[in-house]
């Protein structure tokens, strides 16, 4: 599984490692270059001094340093150098060289050439310059020769001069530098790694805290809000909020389901108790056939109530499953309302209810599903008939306003919940009692009606126009 922490660590580690190595290498190369340059410069200087100290005098080549003449005698004393007379093949060594030989070389065409050399038994590593030099001809010597009719040309006396210097101190310095740089790189790398590790850990801590919170909530209480870590980074806040709202929705659904199951099992308990009681009673002693028949009839009645109840409950479980989509066709709402009112007129009379109906002046044709619309309207009328106190008035109004077709049913009602939305909860009943007919007020009519209205892109809402009054409004968008 990819891990942010590991990825960050690896990437930062590689970055720091590359940076540090490049830096160290550059430092090493620069210092090495500087040291070599310095060394070469000093060899060149020594070589030029030594070249200047070779003179032609009294018919032979003399080396000033041999006579302790000239300047820089300390250089000639310490330096390692050797001359080869190309003409005579004679060689002259510096005192420091003792009897050892330096390698004989020069650059192309006698120009100065620099090389790393080693002298057997003396220096393993040395830096040397090799070049061809010619002796210096003193002016007075030249004049004297001319007088004798001879021409002297320094070119006739070519020498190869090789000057060497021990490279060991430079190499030691470079090795020391390399060691320091390597150790420094490794230590800096480790320190950087530790710092980055801690930085990553502290940056990721809010994620861990959030995870713990979420885990705790999912394990224990889905209904409680997440306690967000103190300083939640701005990158995480939206995630936490979406998670919180997701969990809240899950909790709401769970609680609705719990309520539904509780209500459903509650609804089932009484008929089952009745069935059990009736059979137990019938079997409690020997009875006349007619009496058994009576008990069996009671059982049959209770079973059919139970069957109706279960049917309604399964209808309820299908709500919102989109298995039954709405078929929208042009409908005259006023016509459907009139026919429903006709069906209910006897019930309204029996309940001593006065009905005031406000129809629109022109017909209202809208796009709706005839079955769903009839379901909603019948349910609203049924509710009004069932819950209005006898002698009260039910006001029904159908009109078009703000691009919507509205049907409102208002009536007096007692026992209303504080939150009217609860009326639409499955199995919620205003009255705490059960009615004797399992087909009627099971507390799912309004839920079904609301779902039906929403399936037609409309809605069904409840408002409280005045204390002790309720108004249901069924709205559909105008075509």
């Amino acid at each position, binding site marked *: 599984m990819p891990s942010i922490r590991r990825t960050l660590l690896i990437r930062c580690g590689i970055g720091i490692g590359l940076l540090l190595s490049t830096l160290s290498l550059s430092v090493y190369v620069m210092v090495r270059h500087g040291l070599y340059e310095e060394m070469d410069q000093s060899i060149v200087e020594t070589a030029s001094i030594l070249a200047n100290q070779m003179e032609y005098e009294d018919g032979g080549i003399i080396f000033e340093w041999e006579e302790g003449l000239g300047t820089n005698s300390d250089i000639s004393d310490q330096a390692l150098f050797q001359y080869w007379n190309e003409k005579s093949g004679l060689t002259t060594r510096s005192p420091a060289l003792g009897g050892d030989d330096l390698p004989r070389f020069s650059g192309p065409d006698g120009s100065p050439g620099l090389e790393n050399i080693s002298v057997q038994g003396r220096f393993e590593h040395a830096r040397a310059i090799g070049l061809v030099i010619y002796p210096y001809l003193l002016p007075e010597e030249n004049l004297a020769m001319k007088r004798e009719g001879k021409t002297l040309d320094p070119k006739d006396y070519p020498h190869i001069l090789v000057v060497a210097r021990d490279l060991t101190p430079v190499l030691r310095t470079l090795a020391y530098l390399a060691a320091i740089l390597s150790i420094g790189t490794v230590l800096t790398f480790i320190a950087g790694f530790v710092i980055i590790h801690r930085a990553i850990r502290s940056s990721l801590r809010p994620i861990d805290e959030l995870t713990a919170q979420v885990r705790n909530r999912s394990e224990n209480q889905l209904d409680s809000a997440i306690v967000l870590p103190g300083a939640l980074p701005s990158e995480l806040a939206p995630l936490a909020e979406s998670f919180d709202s997701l969990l809240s929705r899950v909790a709401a659904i769970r609680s609705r389901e719990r309520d539904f199951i*509780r209500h459903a*099992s*509650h*609804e089932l*308990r*009484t*008929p*089952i*108790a*009745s*069935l*059990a*009681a*009736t059979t*137990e*009673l019938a079997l*409690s*002693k020997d009875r006349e056939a007619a009496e058994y028949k009576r*008990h069996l009839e*009671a059982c049959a*009645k*209770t079973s059919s109530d139970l069957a109706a109840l279960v049917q309604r409950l399964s209808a309820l479980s299908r709500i919102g499953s989109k298995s039954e989509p709405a078929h929208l066709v042009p409908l005259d709402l006023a016509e459907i309302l009139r026919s429903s009112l006709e069906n209910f007129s006897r019930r309204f009379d029996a309940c001593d209810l006065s009905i005031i109906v406000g129809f629109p002046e022109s017909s209202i044709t809208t796009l709706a599903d005839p079955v769903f619309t009839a379901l909603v309207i019948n349910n609203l009328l049924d509710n009004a008939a069932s819950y209005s106190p006898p002698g009260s008035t039910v006001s029904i109004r159908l009109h078009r306003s703000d691009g919507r077709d509205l049907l409102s049913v208002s009536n007096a009602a007692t026992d209303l919940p504080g939150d009217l939305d609860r009326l639409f909860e499955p199995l919620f009943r205003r*009255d*705490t*009692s*059960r*009615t*004797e007919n399992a087909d009627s007020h099971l507390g799912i009519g309004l839920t079904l009606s609301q779902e039906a209205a929403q399936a037609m892109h409309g809605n069904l809402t409840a408002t409280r126009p005045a204390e002790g009054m309720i108004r249901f409004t069924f709205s559909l968008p105008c075509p």
Partner: protein
Amino acid sequence: MRLLIIEDHVILRDSLVQFFREASFIVDSTGAGDEGLWYATEHPYDVVLLDLMLPGIDGMEILRRLRKKQIAVFILVISARDGLEDRLEALNSGADDYLVKPFPMAEALARIHALLRRKYAKKDTLIRIGDLTLDPLKRSVHRAGQAVELTAQEYRLLEYLAFRTGEVVSRTDIWEHVFADSTGGNSNVADVYVGYLRKKLNTGDLPNLIHTRRGLGFVLESA
């Protein structure tokens, strides 16, 4: 013993009524909360079976009102609500016992008998007065080891007197707890049934256990 059943599910109520009548109880019943409250307030019941979800006044409210009026009747709540909070609320509002629907009738009967034993301070399930033994669960009566056959009405009277052993029981109490029509009171029906009982219990030389207290009533005790 007199029972009141307040339950709005008609079939369940009818079954309960018949079952308890067959178990020798005098049973009144109603499906409405307000009517039930009136019955329980105006009549001396031994036990009330009370459903919680009722039209009119709900069961919980009936409980509270009865207890507020200091009516010390024993109340057995029968409800479909099985949550702990529902049971606690009912018991804390004054219910003596709680039975979740559906329940076996035998359990309801056993709980009612337990409530009766509590009401009349009886620990033993058998009631013994001298050589008379009465078993309320089996509804059987033995005198000196011999079974005594009684009619339902005679049994009810003996059971009531037995539960109140040693106490003087007034004719009004007998009338209210033993006879189905509790509107009378001046009738001498109680004396008639006490006579029947004495005849059936005092066979041979067995001593009389039901004594008349002139102007007060009757007492069941061994001499």
